[in-house]
């Protein structure tokens, strides 16, 4: 695989320009951050109707070979062996210190075939990691010339069912291979906005045709990466490089739910992934820090990097993602705090431009997730 260092574009680049998108560099790609509708309205549109996102910059990788499942299990603290056919699971590549190299979605396409979607900024490193660690056990194939569209929102299922009715019976985190208007599509009922919706992987050359078909439905609008970020923030979903990084274990990132029982202490296939000792000790004995939701008082947004102090002025953590929640009409933030201060329910403040903003620890997500579970 070769990824050149110059700025790349997705196969929908011209369509974004034609739609009046504001383009920004993101993870080596020129991507639409917003369209003429604007971040706020694009966000609300996704919560109320259906938003279409070009996420073709993300990495799509296939693992093929009879040891593929077992091999992938050696890199993630997640049950892959028992992942049912055409089902998805959220997973994390760990490092030897128990930190997180990337988060990803895994679909079981068949006994010897797995499909992975990884973050754009990490895809090169992920591919190398897979190739070096399990390349002898299965074929690691980086999919080139593919696009990825996400259709998200409460109307997404109606929009897609009009084109291809059998998608309506799919439930959250399941997959289907379908032909839409002669285009080979791999569809999953998943997404990263907190809403019901689908992600559609397809050949890059066909992406424009499918995008046009979806946009011909009046419920659908283009939505950019700006709203994608505010949507996932409201939904309390972690973003790599913010809530997740190489220096913190999944437990320190409050992703205990993603760690499968069989891979934990006492499980049938406990450990056996990089950093397993550290991650299991954090699970069993607790970790020094955790990720929590914060509700700032007032209207001033508290953004990434803002330090959190207690009322005595001790530094107790840092905001990992923060901004304004358009559905809530108020600022919201996610922060990494020392566990001790979370448990003590200390009175906390975020420091913004030298001002102290009172913040309250709140349960994530900020906005109820609306997944379709059947």
């Amino acid at each position: 695989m070769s990824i050149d260092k110059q700025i790349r574009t997705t196969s929908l680049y011209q369509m974004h320009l034609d739609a009046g998108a504001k383009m920004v560099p993101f993870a080596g790609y020129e991507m639409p951050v917003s369209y003429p509708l604007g971040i706020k309205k694009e966000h609300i549109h996704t919560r109320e109707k259906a938003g279409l996102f070009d996420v073709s910059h993300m990495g799509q990788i296939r693992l093929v070979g009879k040891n593929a499942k077992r091999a992938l299990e050696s890199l993630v603290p997640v049950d892959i062996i028992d992942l049912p056919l055409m089902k998805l699971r959220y997973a994390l590549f760990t490092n030897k210190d128990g930190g997180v190299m990337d988060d990803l979605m895994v679909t079981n396409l068949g006994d010897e075939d797995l499909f992975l979607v990884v973050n754009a900024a990490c895809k090169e490193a992920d591919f190398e990691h897979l190739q070096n660690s399990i390349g002898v056990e299965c074929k690691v194939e980086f999919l080139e010339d593919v696009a990825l569209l996400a259709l998200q929102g409460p109307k997404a299922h109606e929009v897609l069912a009009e084109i291809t009715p059998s998608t309506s019976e799919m439930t959250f985190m399941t997959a289907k291979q379908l032909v839409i208007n002669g285009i080979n599509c791999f569809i999953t009922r998943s997404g990263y906005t907190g809403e019901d919706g689908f992600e559609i992987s397809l050949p890059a050359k066909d992406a424009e045709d499918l995008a046009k078909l979806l946009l011909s439905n009046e419920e659908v609008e283009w939505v950019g990466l700006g709203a994608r970020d505010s949507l996932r923030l409201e939904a309390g979903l972690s973003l790599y490089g913010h809530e997740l990084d190489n220096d913190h274990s999944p437990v320190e990132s409050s992703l205990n739910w993603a760690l499968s029982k069989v891979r934990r202490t006492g499980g049938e296939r406990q450990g056996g992934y990089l950093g397993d000792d550290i991650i299991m000790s954090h699970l069993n004995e607790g970790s020094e820090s955790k990720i929590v939701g914060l509700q700032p008082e007032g209207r001033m947004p508290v953004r990434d990097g803002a330090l959190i102090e207690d009322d005595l002025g001790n530094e107790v953590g840092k905001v990992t993602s923060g901004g304004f929640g358009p559905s809530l009409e108020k600022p919201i933030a996610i922060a990494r705090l020392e566990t001790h201060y979370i448990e003590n329910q200390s009175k906390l403040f975020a420091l913004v431009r030298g001002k102290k903003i009172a913040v309250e620890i709140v349960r994530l997500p900020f906005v109820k997730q609306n997944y379709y579970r059947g």
Partner: protein
Amino acid sequence: MSIKFSEDHEWVELKGDDLVVIGITDFAQEQLGDLVYVELPEVGDECSRGENISVIESVKAASDLVAPVSGTIIEVNSRLEDEPELVTEDSMGEGWFIKVKLSNTSELDDLMDESAYNSFIEE
């Protein structure tokens, strides 16, 4: 009516000999996107040209309002604290930021007139 413009995309409207009203241009508010918060200076604060005097927050990011002139802030548009969308809706009117009593009226000569500003943003 005498309105001038800065390279930081502020408009400055002269009201009398040494009083000006300051806001951001339509071009600026379009670039910023949906505004969600405006942090204003205090009445009585001194400002000098080039200094950051106010913070404008959009959904995505925080930007500074740079003082286009020097003087004393004699009034702020406190409505913006609860209705930052006024800037988006009416950037040259209801969405004004501050009123300043100039300490050096000659600074006005360094600002652009409308046609100069229009060519400036077209570049």
